[in-house]
């Protein structure tokens, strides 16, 4: 009987069919009996089964622990490597393209920022010159005393013109009326009107510009100071470190003139 062990060939199952009817009654009983009564043969089987269990668990664990590449053959590894190389080349070119895009966007942003900064600077300069923005800086504060009321509109207008010629950048009457290119000077029964606002002596003029140039512009022979003195008035020129011109005029867009460019 030992020569027919198990099902060493696949055809064994058919020949087993005859044995099946005879053996099926006692096969269960034999299984139970063997489970109750160990024997030497069982010890050998136990050792082999232990070996099998050990190997099986080892293989299962190493299979779960192993990474994808451990069991691969050389040709498979070469193929995997080629695939990874192609993938990394694609990723590299993608990175290069994205970096190029980022560089372009950065350049654009910087250019736009520079243009915005330039425009802001320009707006500020023009705002100070046009009188729409408050200004401060070195300059002089002129106080004209006129006890006899003889200082005329023309005298003040002369002063304004001379200050402008001396490089005045911002001018203000009585801390309240900004003097710009379109400012009007009028005289009526009640007194002097600057841009429609009445100003009374003593007239105070704040001017931003180079202090020494501005003050000398008032003092040359037969100039403003001379005229005021001739009218029994007096001129006092202060040079504070900072002159503040805080009044503004509303910005008005030109209605007739357009840019000539």
């Amino acid at each position, binding site marked *: *009987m*030992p*020569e*027919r*062990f*198990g*099902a*060493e060939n*696949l055809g064994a*199952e058919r020949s*087993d069919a005859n*044995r*099946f009817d005879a*053996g*099926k009654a*006692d*096969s*269960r009983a*034999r*299984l139970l009996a*063997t*489970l*109750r*009564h*160990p024997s*030497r*043969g*069982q*010890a*050998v*089987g*136990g*050792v*082999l*089964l*232990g*070996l*099998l*269990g*050990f*190997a*099986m*668990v*080892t*293989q299962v*664990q*190493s*299979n779960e622990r192993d990474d994808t590449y*451990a*069991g691969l*053959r050389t040709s*498979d590894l070469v193929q995997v490597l080629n695939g990874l190389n192609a993938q990394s080349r694609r990723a590299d070119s993608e990175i290069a393209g994205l970096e190029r895009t980022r560089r372009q966007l950065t350049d654009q942003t910087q250019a736009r920022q520079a243009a915005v900064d330039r425009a802001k600077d320009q707006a500020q300069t023009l705002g100070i010159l046009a009188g729409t923005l408050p200004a401060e800086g070195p300059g002089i504060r002129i106080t004209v005393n006129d006890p006899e009321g003889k200082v005329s509109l023309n005298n003040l207008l002369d002063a304004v013109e001379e200050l402008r010629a001396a490089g005045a950048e911002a001018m203000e009457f009585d801390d309240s009326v900004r003097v710009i290119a379109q400012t009007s000077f009028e005289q009526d029964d009640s007194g002097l009107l600057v841009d429609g606002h009445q100003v009374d002596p003593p007239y105070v003029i704040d001017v931003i510009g180079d202090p020494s140039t501005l003050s000398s512009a008032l003092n040359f022979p037969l100039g403003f100071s001379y005229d005021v003195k001739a009218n029994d008035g007096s001129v006092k020129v202060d040079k504070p470190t900072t002159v503040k011109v805080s009044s503004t005029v509303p910005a008005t867009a030109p209605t007739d003139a357009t840019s000539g460019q």
Partner: protein
Amino acid sequence: MIAVVGLVVGIVLGLVLKPDVPLWLEPYLPIAVVAALDAVFGALRAFLDGIFNDKVFVISFVSNVVIAALIVFVGDKLGVGAQLSTGVIVVLGIRIFSNVAAIRRHIFHA
């Protein structure tokens, strides 16, 4: 009884020791395990048939494992290791199925 205890002891040992599979053994161990499984199921069927012999079991177990590993080894040398492994697994799988079918008939009479 001892066989079942041996199986349990082997599994527990493997779980506790967590041994690393040596590199040279790595391609052969899965095939060897499947071959051993085939031998075990064959033995169980022979036992239920009443023709079990422990000497035959030991020899068939060892020869199954060795031949399976040898086939894979030769296949690797010839450059068809992957295909040959698949073939061995398929054959052993068919045998395991037929053996389990016989065992099932013995135990469940169906």
